[in-house]
């Protein structure tokens, strides 16, 4: 078997998988005569995607900005918190349970509280997206910074390395595979966070569009919005994977 043959088959199977689901979806809607306001055919959804593209794009950008800002904010705070925790067992023992507690609050319950505090602008959406990214990155980053072998630490000790040198030259590089595993998760959940925030109160954004389309029984528009939302999440995911490939060439 040639390499290019393998590559073609690598693409072919997922595409076939998607196409088969679309065909099944279409068949179910047509055969069961489902009314369009309940569930449109995939063709109708795709047609709306084309027809309403300007409206979708106009609502794409606020969500993209909120998700990206939340991604950056949440992950930065998570990494910094992990660094503090790894440096001070005392702080970790005091505050890690707090982080666990906050993580158990459903984001849907947290969203109204944040809207009350931060108002109806972009800020509460950014904060919700950040909150949803925070915990997985915190946990992974703590594990990553501690994923240092005893021989490696002994090597650094024989070389008389300082704590700071050990941190930058050993702990940080060791943590990167763990960090990227968390960033992959965060790249899609941050979009969820932004959309949930928009549900609670927003005039534009994909979340607001979802609410409007649902209340107006515009299901083709609702489905087209879902496509755009998952497209946004895939875009973030792809960016993280591309960055990971550049940074983690060794692993």
């Amino acid at each position, binding site marked *: 078997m040639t390499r290019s043959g393998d590559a073609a088959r690598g693409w072919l199977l997922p595409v076939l998988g998607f196409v088969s689901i679309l065909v099944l979806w279409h068949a179910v809607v047509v055969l069961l005569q489902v009314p369009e306001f309940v569930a449109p055919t995939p063709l109708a959804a795709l047609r709306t995607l084309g027809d309403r593209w300007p409206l979708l794009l106009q609502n794409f950008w606020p969500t993209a900005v909120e998700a990206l800002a939340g991604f950056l904010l949440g992950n930065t705070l998570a990494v910094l918190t992990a660094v503090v925790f790894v440096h001070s067992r005392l702080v970790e023992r005091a505050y890690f349970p707090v982080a666990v507690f906050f993580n158990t609050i459903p984001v849907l319950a947290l969203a109204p509280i944040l809207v009350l505090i931060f108002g109806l602008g972009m800020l509460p959406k950014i904060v919700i997206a950040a909150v949803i990214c925070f915990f997985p990155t915190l946990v992974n980053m703590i594990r990553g910074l501690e994923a240092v*072998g005893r*021989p*490696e630490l*002994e*090597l*650094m*000790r*024989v*070389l*008389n*390395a*300082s704590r700071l*040198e*050990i941190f930058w*030259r*050993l702990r940080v*590089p060791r943590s990167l595979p763990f960090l990227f595993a968390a960033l992959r998760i965060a790249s899609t959940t941050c979009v969820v966070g932004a959309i949930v925030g928009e549900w609670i109160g927003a005039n534009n954004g994909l979340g607001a569009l979802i609410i409007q389309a649902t209340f107006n029984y515009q299901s083709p528009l609702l489905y087209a919005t879902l496509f755009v939302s998952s497209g946004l999440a895939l875009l973030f995911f792809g960016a993280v994977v591309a960055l990971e490939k550049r940074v*983690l*060439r*060794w*692993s």
Partner: protein
Amino acid sequence: MAEPFAVRMAGIGVVFERDGQRFEALRTVSLELAAGAFVCLIGPSGCGKSTLLRVLADLVPIAGGEARILGQTPAEARAARRLGFCFQDATLLPWRTVIANVRLALEVGRPAAARPPRRSPEELLELVGLGARLDALPGELSGGMRQRVAIARALVGDPALLLMDEPFGALDELTRDRLNDELLRIWQETGTTIVFVTHSLGEAVYLGQEVVVMAAGPGRIHARLDLRPAKAEGGLGRDSATFAALTGELRSLLAEAGA
């Protein structure tokens, strides 16, 4: 230098505590090694030969006795970067290229403050035969090559004492033989004192000017076998009758030690 001995240990004791259990790893170990010596440590597992090496590298605290490396305590010698250490596993940082792994020794621990390195990382990699693989990543190298990189890194800054903890234990026999030859050449070229822990009788006899046999429970020195008379006329061929005789002598010393 006034200090005639590279290493002087007197009455060294090491005690580990695990889950409230005391374990005496070394008891009253005394050993003096001349500067420029190549000494092999051999003994049954649990005899504390690795622990002895770690005492010299200041990786294990001593419970009693006194250790000096060129007149300094192990902690002082470590802080002054006079020690090189090779681990069982090469312990290279996988994200760094070969040359960057060796340069690590120049980047951390303020080695430059001590003295300018006599040999650059490039020259050291040339010395271990890896001058052509500077930009390779450790994952692309064989086990033997990785250990060569580790040796080059340990030699940065001309350590007065090179401590090697079964560095070739995981390698196949042919690679091990070749690296033994290279290590002897490096020892002759650099003049550094080497303490080498091994499980292999042949390796100990082939490499050492002297072999120290240790016994377990608690770890202590059982016997010392001076190989310098046998090696006075140059190296000792692995197939020679003298080599076989010395290996046999070492085997019976080890049997006495309870291996």
